[in-house]
């Protein structure tokens, strides 16, 4: 591809890790360096430019597209996907951000075209009340059951005293368990 790399010996990274430390200025590498400098004089040791023209907008775009779903990839976010479609939508979001649109306006724009399906954070509406409320309902029900179960359980257990045989059995069990407390 580029002239420099064509004669560079291919070592595996392990070898390079070992030898690379000591031979920073080995002949081969010196030639390499020299060639690099000669071949691309303008770019030598320059700080690489970010791909994004405007890092601030890029950051907002990424934050926004983390929570949006790429439709063609089925289950990747717009931020994570390398698909062409995701690229287009990222470009669209970038352009709208540049035009001073708010995050909400952009989300509305996308929802009006692709539906709620693009949102990884489902909107709160009657059809999703169960989704958003579900976990807390589960927790409340569970805690309620647990509390009443424990209370009732204590009462039930207190009533029938252990039979002789049960008592012996329990003793054996307790003995067995000494020392094992994990």
């Amino acid at each position, binding site marked *: 591809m580029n002239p420099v790399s064509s004669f560079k010996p291919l070592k595996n990274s392990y070898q390079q890790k070992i030898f690379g430390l000591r031979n920073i200025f080995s002949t081969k590498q010196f030639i390499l360096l020299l060639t690099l400098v000669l071949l691309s004089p303008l770019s030598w040791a320059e700080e690489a430019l970010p791909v994004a023209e405007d890092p601030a907008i890029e950051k907002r775009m990424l934050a926004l597209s983390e929570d949006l779903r790429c439709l*063609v990839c089925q289950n990747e976010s717009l931020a994570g996907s390398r698909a062409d*479609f995701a690229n287009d939508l990222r470009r*669209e979001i970038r352009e709208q951000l540049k035009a001073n649109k708010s995050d909400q306006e952009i989300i509305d724009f996308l929802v009006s075209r692709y539906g709620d399906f693009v949102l990884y954070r489902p909107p709160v509406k009657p059809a999703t009340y169960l989704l958003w409320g579900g976990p807390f309902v589960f927790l409340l029900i569970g805690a309620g059951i647990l509390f009443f179960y424990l209370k009732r359980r204590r009462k039930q257990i207190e009533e029938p005293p252990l039979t002789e045989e049960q008592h012996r059995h329990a003793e054996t069990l307790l003995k067995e368990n000494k020392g094992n407390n994990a």
Partner: protein
Amino acid sequence: MMRFLLPLAAFIVLVGFLAVGLNLKPREVPSPLIGKPAPVFQSQSLHEPERILASKDNLGKVWLLNVWASWCVSCREEHPLLVELAKSGIVPIYGLNYKDKRDLALQWLSQYGDPYTISVVDPEGRIGIDYGVYGVPETYVIDKNGVIRHKQIGPVTIESLEKKILPLIKELQG
């Protein structure tokens, strides 16, 4: 004891949903644009780059907008049907050549036939975004008032044509 039956009850509900789910198509995302005015666009003609075509020219008639590209494999599947439909003259088909190269697109049309009354280009997929295109091919049925009435996701098939698209066109034209 009723409470010991609760797990079973929950499981039965779950199975109900899973059974219905087997017949659903999770890959198809319905368009929220159905029943809404088709987004207005203006773009170059595929055949004559200097000609600018606008979607509002189509007001007053029922038309199909078919999104296609020469790189799209399943477009080849539906293409003979579109060519046939165009020959029948039932409805004008407008082609939106999506993210394609002009020469490849023209070559493709000359090879497989050109069913399009008019073809416009969308080299960067911007019109596609407006229409909520997320795969090619897609086909939209647009009525006389410029409202989107139906969206076919994926290739048009004989079945979808006969069961849905043609009856709808007849109804809209009538």
